[in-house]
């Protein structure tokens, strides 16, 4: 079946991602949750994650561009992103969030934009890798 094929190739690339440090053990937990009753679970979660994160990062950038930066809001955004990425096991993204949360505490706008661009970069990298897995995430085409 196409789904199985897709899953298998995806899994192969998932190995690579693990090695590279993109994903951690949480992702394998997700993989375990996919079964006959819910075969597209992983795919669905990953899509939702990318959608969510993209939105978050866009919001973040907008907030940062404003004159009076609302750091509380930014903190909330980062918190959300951190939560999502840790739920899915996107290790690099999560680490990036943790790392540049400090900038938020310091109210360092430059740091925040830097941090957000890095997180964006990681996200993009992740997506790219997954795309290379065979277009498993059709939604991504909107954001490339």
């Amino acid at each position, binding site marked *: 079946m196409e789904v199985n094929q897709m899953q298998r190739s995806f*899994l192969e690339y998932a190995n690579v991602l693990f090695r590279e440090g993109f994903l951690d053990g949480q992702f394998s937990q997700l993989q375990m949750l996919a079964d006959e009753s819910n075969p597209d679970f992983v795919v669905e979660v990953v899509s939702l994650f990318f959608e969510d994160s993209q939105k978050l990062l866009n919001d973040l950038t907008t907030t940062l561009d404003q004159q009076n930066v609302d750091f509380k809001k930014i903190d*909330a955004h980062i918190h959300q992103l951190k*939560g*999502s990425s840790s739920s899915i096991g996107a290790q*690099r993204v999560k680490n*990036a969030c943790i790392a540049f949360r400090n900038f938020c505490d310091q109210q360092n706008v430059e740091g925040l934009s830097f941090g957000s661009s890095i997180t964006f*970069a990681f996200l993009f*990298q992740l997506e790219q890798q997954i795309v290379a897995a065979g277009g498993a995430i059709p939604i991504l085409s909107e954001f490339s």
Partner: protein
Amino acid sequence: MELCNCIEPPWPAGELLMKYQYISDFFIALAYFSIPLELIYFVKKSAVFPYRWVLVQFGAFIVLCGATHLINLWTFTLHTKTVAVVMTTAKVLTAAVSCATALMLVHIIPDLLSVKTRELFLKNKAAELDREMGLIRTQEETGRHVRMLTHEIRSTLDRHTILKTTLVELGRTLGLEECALWMPTRTGLELQLSYTLRHQNPVGFTVPIQLPVINQVFNTNRAVKISPNSPVARLRPTGMYMPGEVVAVRVPLLHLSNFQIHDWPELSTRRYALMVLMLPSDSARQWHVHELELVEVVADQVAVALSHAAILEESMKARDLLMEQNVALDHARREAETAVRARNDFLAVMNHEMRTPMHAIIALSSLLLETELTPEQRLMVETVLKSSNLLSTLINDVLDLSRLEDGSLKLEIGTFSLHTLFRETYNLIKPIASVKKLNFTLSLSSELPEFAIGDEKRLMQVLLNVVGNAVKFTKEGSISVSAFVAKLDSLREFRAPDLISIPSDNHFYLRIEVKDTGLGINPQDLPKLFMKFVQSQPTKNSSGLGLAICKRFVNLMEGHICIESEGLGKGSTAIVIVKLGIPGRSNESKLSFVHKVPRNQVKPAFSGLKVVLMDDNSVGRMVTKGLLVHLGCDVLAVGSGDECVRVINHEHKVVFLDVSMPDVNSFEVAVRIHEKFSKRMDRPLIVALTGNTDRMTKENCRRVGMNGVLLKPVSVDKMRSALSELLEKGFFVESK
């Protein structure tokens, strides 16, 4: 003769002579009678007189003589016959006794004379004894003085006190006018006046050491009388008076080196000081023998005391030096510790700070490559990427190495596929080898297990490093990588037998050999290969750290790595041996990667269990919901606290509240849920999901009446066990 009645016969002139005779006889008789009386009286007085018999005789003799003379008085005038008879008798008796006495005296007088001689003899003897007693007494007194002096001198270990005390005590004991000590100077050519009794601070007179008088004193261990005019004795201002006698004695100055085990210090190596003692001037005193002896003894004692003081001084100096060194060492140690701490702090910070920008650079450069670029731009970006990759590797290497050295690096053990590992390495290296037109082969022994337990990431790093080196330094020919299970014999070559654990069911030793036909290594350089930052040739080992890190990783894996080469141009072989675990029968739980299509784990134990999940993070919500659904629950997922309180009903057995939500106070939600269900029976169990590990959170959860806390990320197993415990006991304790 005419008898006359006249009492006094007439004295004719010719009778003057008779008158005188008469008086003389009278007095003689008187004397003769009184002498025995005196004798008797005095003999009675003395008890000792031995010759009583002689006295009696003598007494008789005298008495009779006296009687004779007395009777003679009557014969001057006409006298009767009776008188004549008496006279005659008396004379006869007297004659007899006198002769007897005369004869006896012949015997007695020699005796008496000898008594006198004996008396004289005894008197002499007594005088002699008296003299000797006096001598002994003086000696004993000298001895006492010496003891006291010695005690005084030895009671201190300070050099100056010793010498001063000596002079003071000697002065006192012997009643000296002046006492001085001349010490040899550092050069040994002169004697310097160091201490005197009377002057507190002697001016530094010096005399050359080669004076005859000084030599004379130094050549004997006795005290020597010297002339008061010699240069060493001119200690007092010269005056009108006659200086007293002067005595000098040598004081040996002993050094530590003088004391050999078997022989006493030799004369030749000695230095001496000179002690000069002066008797009071204008006294008729002379140096007595016992006083000289005293001085000699004291000089010896002083020598001993000085040597003790010298030894003490040296040991004190040594101790001070040690203390100084200790302090310095302690200081250095503390500095080193501070330095290490500083370095660790620095590394901890740099670890994070360095990696983040590096990753940004790498990520953004790779992104840039995906965009439209001119060939020059592409080349530039590729160079940037390559350099930053290199830099990233270097940073990682350095940071890893520091952690390795601290011992804080721990291997990340997991189960992995050996075949995959080698295949990956092959795939990565093959292109490079092909470009260099090298023959690259990989051979895996059939004995190799499919899976092994170990740190795959680092094993791969080691393998890549070794193979990479082989490829780097081979210009032509071939590289061959072979892996097999190491036999015990080959292990013993490398390590002490007791350090190797016998390969058993739990583990085995993997042996990898990488042979190349490359440049080879100079045998001299072989030991340096694994030392960090040492480069044997300029081109070898770009960072100088790679092999050092490999060695440490291999050591952590309880293995061995070495490189053999027969010489330059003869190629080299790298041998890596590591200890890996053998996975048990059931592989599933250890796998970090899922290689098979995930299937149903266990029959859902909680089929149909109605639960409510509150999480405002859509992704998190979805993930947790998927988890619970997987376990068989009937999940109602909501995104806000209000909605949660609204939808919950008595059918729901468990409520999962995400506690990390910033807007909603999940604790408040819990309280509201409690309020909604007044009856205990209907109330659902509340579980908090949180990423916080601190006790505060746990405390707060417990306080609002939550029945359990789960730490995110939650694995399937954790959720399963938590739910079972929860449903069984009504609460569960998170052990992490």
